[in-house]
Each structure stands twice: as C-alpha cells, then as structure tokens.
C-alpha cells in the first residue's frame, strides 16, 4: 500500500463505494435465532452493492504503486520534504467504510420500527418479547456506526463480530436441524465470511494508516532521516579535522568498512549492510566550510541514495563543540526496510549514527575507542 497525494481518485469514487457488513449482536445464545435472521437480512440486502468495490480496490492500489515509483528521486530541501509529508494518503479504510453507516442506519431503523416485516422477508418467526432489547441494540449500533466507523479498534471489533456471527450461525444449525439444509442460511454464512474478509482488510488498512501517521514519515519508497548530535570537549577545529579525515573514520565508526578518497571532493564509502552485505556509495562534497560544516550527497550509481551534513558549533561557555549530523537516505522498502535492517543488525541507522558519534567523542576525549569486551567477559 502506498501514500500519494492523488485525492481526486478518492473523491470521485467514495460515493460509489458500498460494502457488505454484518450487525453487532448480543452474546446470549438464546438470541441466536434472531441474530442469524438479522445476519441474513443484512447480508441479503447488502450483497448487490458489495462486488464492484473489491475490483476497484485492487486496481487502485497497483496504479498508485507504479505512480509512486516515478516519484522516487531524492529531495534534499527540508521544505519540499515537509510538503510531501503533509500529502494525504489514499484512505482505503475510509473507502471501505464510507457509506456503510447510511445503509446500516436504514437497516437498523427498519429493525426498530418494523421487525416483523424484516423477519417475514426471510421467513423466520420473530420472538416478540425480544423486541425491546433488540431496539436498544439497534440504537446502539446506529451510534456505533456514525461515531466509530473509522476507528481501528472498532473495525477490529467488527471483525470479531463477524467471527461471532459465523459461530452463532453454526450454533443455530447445530441445534436446529431444519436450518442445516436451509439455502438462505448457507448463503448468509458465505456472505458473513466475505464480510469478515472485507472488514479485516479495512481494519488492517486503518490500523496501518494510524501507525504510519504516528510515525510521521510515510510508507514505502519514502526517504528516511537519521540525525544525531553530541557535544565533544574539544575545539571546533579539532573536531572538524578529525571528521574531515574521511579515510580514518572507519577506525572510529564501527559501521563503516572503508572510505577511499577519489579526489578533493569525491570519496567512496562502504558500510556494513544487513545479513553480511556491503552497501557502498560515492559521495560528493557539495559544500565544505572549514571548521564549520560539510555537506555531501551521493552520486549516480550508489547502492543507497543519500545526502547529509555535519555541522560543528561552539557549545556555550567553553563546553566544547557540538557535532550535528543529519542524513536523508532512501532504502529499499522505506520504513519496512529500516525495520528489517534493525531486525538483522540490532540497531537502526539513527542508533548506528549516534553510536558512531559517541565513538568519535571517545577518540577525541580519551584517545581511543572505549571497549568493554576483554578475555574475561564471555558474553
């Protein structure tokens, strides 16, 4: 699934979206006949409108993925990045759930006002004494649908509800022999199953969207950021000189395998990748302010497109030098790729960057990288 700013597709399709669903049921077994009946009614009425959407959903997704691939180029400007971050994603959860409340509202209302008619529609007897509690349930469902339809937990609750419905139908068939051969019930069962799949997709999407928006940056193919900062008790010139000596950095920064300088501006960097792999890129310095900052970007043909900067700032009142490093990079799989890398390497790139800066500090302040491991510590 991808994020994009293609809001037109969303607007034009939303009103055509229909979806099958099923009703929330009380848990009592003695209500099971009424519940099965309701499930039947809802599924029968909702069937027609549910089919086209699945197709639509499938094509939309593919379309957007290819489109997004074309947007892969790396942007370095913070502004353009913020703008892209603000782009509204295709909201599949909204699509799948949009319009549901009106259909369900009508059904719920029918159930409250004319339960007998509904019951007759599928040929089952109504328990008249159940009418009051059922009306209350329906009223609750109206509220539920209008308020909670796009909340992930409620969507998951609906998936659970679908499973419950299936169980109730099974139970009803188990206890009433007639229902086993009832074609309507068999159809209902199939419809509830379909509904369950659809609800699960919607719930997964909404959950994913909530997760992605909480993380700020979007889904796949997005550039990632890594920043780290540390204060080192040394003069700015010393910190700059140590950092600028790229070829020596691998002895300090444990994640760097090697750095070869090609000329004054260009250098080739090799870092440890996940699962024993090596990732390399050719970096080009695009700005080098002596004792203040270095800005670089990767050149064509690099394994990982990246751009970054390091700034050296005087800390106040002789507290040394603040070293600020900021990197943007594209990895295959975006956030997912970073998560996989973290799984394989135990650290994500931000942690690695921070660890490397800590080692730079150790070298500048104590003359050596500090190690705990010795012959005596087996672990």
């Amino acid at each position: 699934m991808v994020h994009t700013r293609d809001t037109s597709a969303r607007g034009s399709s939303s009103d055509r979206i229909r979806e099958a669903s099923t009703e929330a049921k009380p848990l009592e077994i003695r209500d099971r006949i009424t519940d099965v009946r309701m499930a039947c009614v809802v599924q029968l009425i909702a069937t027609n409108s549910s089919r086209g959407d699945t197709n639509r959903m499938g094509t939309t997704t593919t379309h957007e993925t290819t489109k997004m691939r074309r947007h892969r180029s790396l942007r370095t400007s913070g502004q353009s990045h913020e703008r892209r971050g603000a782009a509204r994603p295709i909201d599949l959860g909204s699509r799948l759930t949009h319009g549901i409340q009106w259909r369900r509202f009508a059904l719920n209302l029918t159930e409250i006002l004319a339960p007998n008619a509904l019951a007759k529609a599928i040929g089952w007897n109504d328990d008249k004494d159940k009418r009051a509690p059922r009306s209350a349930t329906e009223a609750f469902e109206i509220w539920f649908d209008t308020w909670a339809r796009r909340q992930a937990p409620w969507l998951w609750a609906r998936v659970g509800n679908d499973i419950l419905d299936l169980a109730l139908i099974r139970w009803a068939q188990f206890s009433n022999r007639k229902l086993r051969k009832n074609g309507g019930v068999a159809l209902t069962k199939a419809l509830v199953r379909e509904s369950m799949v659809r609800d699960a997709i919607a719930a997964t999407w909404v959950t994913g969207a909530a997760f992605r928006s909480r993380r700020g940056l979007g889904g796949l193919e997005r550039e990632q950021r890594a920043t780290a900062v540390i204060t080192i008790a040394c003069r700015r010139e010393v910190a700059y000189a140590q950092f600028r000596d790229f070829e020596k950095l691998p002895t300090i920064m444990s994640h760097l395998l090697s750095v070869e300088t090609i000329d004054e501006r260009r250098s080739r960097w090799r870092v440890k990748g996940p699962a024993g792999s090596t990732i390399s890129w050719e970096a080009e310095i695009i700005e080098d302010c002596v004792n203040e900052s270095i800005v670089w970007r990767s050149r064509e043909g690099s394994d990982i497109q990246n751009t970054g900067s390091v700034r050296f700032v005087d800390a106040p009142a002789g507290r040394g030098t603040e070293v600020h490093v900021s990197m943007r990079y594209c990895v295959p799989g975006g956030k997912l790729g970073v998560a996989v890398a973290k799984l394989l390497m135990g650290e994500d790139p931000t942690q690695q960057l921070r660890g490397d800066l800590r080692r730079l500090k150790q070298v500048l302040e104590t003359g050596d990288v500090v190690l705990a491991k010795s012959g005596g510590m087996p672990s």
Partner: protein
Amino acid sequence: MKAVCWHGSRDVVVERVPDPRIVSATDAIVRVTSTAICGSDLHLYNGFIPTVEKGDILGHEFMGEVVEIGRGVKNLHVGDRVVVPFPIACGACSQCNAGLTSLCENSNPNASMAEALWGHSPAGLFGYSHMLGGYAGGQAEYVRVPFADVGPLKIPASVSDEQALFLSDILPTGYMGAEMCEILPGDVIAVWGAGPVGQFAIASARMLGAERIVAIDRFPYRLDMALTRAGATDVINYETVDVEEALAELTGGRGPDACIDAVGMEAHSHAIPYAYDRAKQMMRLETDRPLALREAIRSCRNGGTISVIGVYGGYIDKFPMGSIMNRSLTLKSGQCHVHRYMKPLLERIERGDIDPSFIITHRLSLDEAPQGYDTFLHKHERCMKVVMKPATDGIATQ
C-alpha cells in the same frame, strides 16, 4: 582464571573463564586480593537489574596488585597495590572534569541501552549489567581496569586490605550520602537501612558533625552495630515501632533535618504497602519498591533534604511528590562519584577517624561465593559483609 558468574536469578557459579587482557593502551590488569559482595549485587542476584546475561562476571568492590599495564599508563607500575573505584571514568570528559565520575560520558560503550531506559547514560560500572557497560567484574582472580591512570588508588602498606577495600564503593557511597545532607550543627539525620552502606552513612554523618543519628532497620544485630560501632545515637526497629511517630518524638515533632535512603529498590516493610509493592513488582507494573523512600520523604522536616544512595533501577509507584513540593524538600541522589572521595577517606583511615573493617562478618574464598551470596541475602549468621580473597598465594592480605 576463576570468576563468579551470574547464571540466573539466585544462581551464581564459580567458573573457569579466559583471563582478561590489555585491550586499550590505558588499561591495567589487576590481580584481585580482596573482593566483596555488595548489597547492590543482591539486586543482580535477585534478578531485578535488566540486561544481565548468563556468564557475566559479577563484582565491583575489589582491590589487588597491578600485574600488567598498557603502554599508555603513567601513574601505575606493576606491583602497585591499588583499590579500584566501581565507576569507570575516563578523566577527560566534562563530567569527569567536574568531579562527577559516575557520570563519565565515555566509559559506557552500551550507552544506548541506558539511554533507552533513563534518557541519558551514566558511566560504565564493573560487573553491573550490559546496560552499564558490560565490563567484567571483580569477583575474579584478575580484572581488566580501563583508564588505569584515572581510577585506581595506590594504598600504603600501613593500611590493610580489609581497611582499604571499601574505598572502592560503600565507604565513599555512605560518605556521599551524608555529605549530600549538608549537615549543620544540631542536625538530626535519619538513616533507612543499617546494612554496610547505612553503617558507613551513619559513621560519616558522625564525622561530619551530626547531633543525633537515627538508624532504622528490622534486624537487631544490624541496629546493634549501628549503635555500638558506627556511631548512631538512636535506633528504630520498624517491625516493632511506628517510624514516623518515633522520629517525630525524637525530634520534637520537627522531623529529621535530613533523611538518607540506604535501602533502595528492594525495600521491606511489615505493613500492607509491602504486599502492594511486592505484587506490583512481580507483575512488572513497577520495577522498584520505594517503601523506605516514601517513609523518608514523609518523615523529613519541612525544608529538609532526602539523600538517596540506595540503588533504584527504573520506575516507582505512589511517589509522594506533593510532600516534596509543598514542604520544600530537596531530593539528592546519585551513584557515588567514588574517585573524588577516595583520597580524603584514605587519609581519614590513616588518621584513625574510621576503621571500615568493622562491618566484615564473613571471610570466604572465591569458591565459596554462591554460599556467600545466599548467606548475605538471607542475613544468616548475622551476616553484614562478605569479603572474599581470590589470591591466597600472593601479597600480604592481613
């Protein structure tokens, strides 16, 4: 070499492990002549400190003889008899320069683990979890000591191992606990926990001129020692006496001017709150049981100081912040910055102001470590402090 290795909760094993070696030019290898089990080792022993792994060598109170030095070491020579402070400090970062050596910015290679739990990382410690550096500890025949020019303090022959050993941790820790109270003439100091650190906090409060010092514990033999050896003027057994009431009585209703928590995360109590905290700790709803700390805060006089030297690991529940804020209390704490106290305290030992060896109740060999941990934990045989002597063939261990 032989070393005491952590194998799990309440499971330590004396194992053969590879000898340590010089890793950095500023390292030294020390052959351990005396090493002690610390109360904070019991937190590891009980499994309350995260990131301890099977096979980790325990121990952070040790002293011995320098047997090897890196080429960059200038202040030490092979053969020197040294006490090693438990925090590892580089001596070069801003915190070390400020004398706050337990906050060294360079000595914890696993700082990111500590940052995840605490926000920022303190110094690395010997034998005290991977989160705090993953350094091999001193309950072993040999130890690698990083930054050997910064930490180890040479001990003159006139001072015995048993007198000098506690300079590595508990004597400076107790002293810092008393120092943080900023004792003025006439002050009453209450000390929760009459274990080894509590005893030294009491002795230090006396050295710093406190008027009265109240020891609070539940073991009569510990309260006895506080009264007869450390210099407490009053004792409270919290199992038989209501602590807040007794302290109010002792101080004319004002409350102690400063309260020292020398108990930490595994506090006991005979009352209902103990069951409550115990249950929450078991369910991982809080990591530490702050029973002594709560009592110390409530008992302290208005405007007084709470000095926390007992070890806490993570999160506590029902912390009486309202009492601190509304009554202008000051809360001070920290792992001891041992380096800055070692020399002055060694001088006090040489002058005879204090003989820290009074707390030693058990002298064992390294092989007896598992039994030592068990005895210390359960306070069997009136156990106060266990000292082990790994090197029996070497230099004089009086």
